């Protein structure tokens, strides 16, 4: 659960500002086209996308080669692949677009004239983010976060391909339990995952009223 939470936080930090930027600064006619750019990675099969991270992250891979040539490191980093870090990188690379999509939808709940008022009144950017964007876009941000969290917890491919000792998730445990014909364990893991998801959705609904996500459409 730890690396799933870290993935959600990193995805939010990297992806949400893009959603805000697209909603605030890009002309409305072009907004969907920019968001469509983030569908590009999904044009490639998920297995290939995750597998293709191996040559990038491994000892003689792209990251190490570039860092070595730039003189940042003197010997290749071996702690990226087959570690929890590798799984986190894989999760962020796989699920980052979802926080952009969710953030983009969430920002629909923030009327554009509010930003103009904030700009006119000279509100600092961090106050606009904390006092205006976060409270209004909270349901969408939460929905995106839960989506990434549950996927990170359940997709067995990621730790299977990029992980190693100490880098497992619930999906991999369930898959291995099924392969070992230990169905009760697999069912217990699945039940815990479902309960976690339902619990998270309940908490989110109590805190942010998740039906607000659909309110701009209604």
């Amino acid at each position, binding site marked *: 659960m730890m690396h799933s939470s870290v993935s959600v936080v990193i995805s939010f930090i990297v992806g949400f500002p893009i959603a805000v930027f697209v909603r605030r600064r890009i002309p409305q006619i072009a907004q969907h086209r920019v968001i469509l750019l983030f569908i590009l990675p999904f044009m490639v099969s998920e297995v290939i996308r995750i597998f293709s991270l191996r040559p*990038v992250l491994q000892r003689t891979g792209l990251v190490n080669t570039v860092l070595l040539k730039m003189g940042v490191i003197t010997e290749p980093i071996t702690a990226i692949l087959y570690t929890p870090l590798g799984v986190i990188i894989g999760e962020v690379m796989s699920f980052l677009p979802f926080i952009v999509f969710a953030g983009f939808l969430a920002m629909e709940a923030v009327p554009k004239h509010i930003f103009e008022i904030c700009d006119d009144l000279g509100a600092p950017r961090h106050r606009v983010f904390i006092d205006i964007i976060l409270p209004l876009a909270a349901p969408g941000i939460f929905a995106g976060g839960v989506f990434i969290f549950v996927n990170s917890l359940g997709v067995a491919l990621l730790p299977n391909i990029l992980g190693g000792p100490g880098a497992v998730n619930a999906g991999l445990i369930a898959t291995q339990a099924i392969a070992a014909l230990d169905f009760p364990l697999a069912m217990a893991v699945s039940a815990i995952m479902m309960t976690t998801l339902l619990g998270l959705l309940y908490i989110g609904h109590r805190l942010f009223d998740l039906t607000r996500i659909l309110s701009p459409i209604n």
Partner: protein
Amino acid sequence: MSDDYTSIWSYRLKWLYTLLVVFTLMLPVFYVMYISFNKNGFGARDYVFTLEWYGNIFPICC
């Protein structure tokens, strides 16, 4: 840019960041494609351009 308050360079930087994130997401795929044109395969010291691997999949002659 939809208002008069943002500087053009800040706007351009945000565009650059957005495109950089998209490029980073696609980078592993591009890198695998780059490797697929190497005769010696992944991790080889020398890069020798070839279409051999594609020739194996799509045989040109009979």
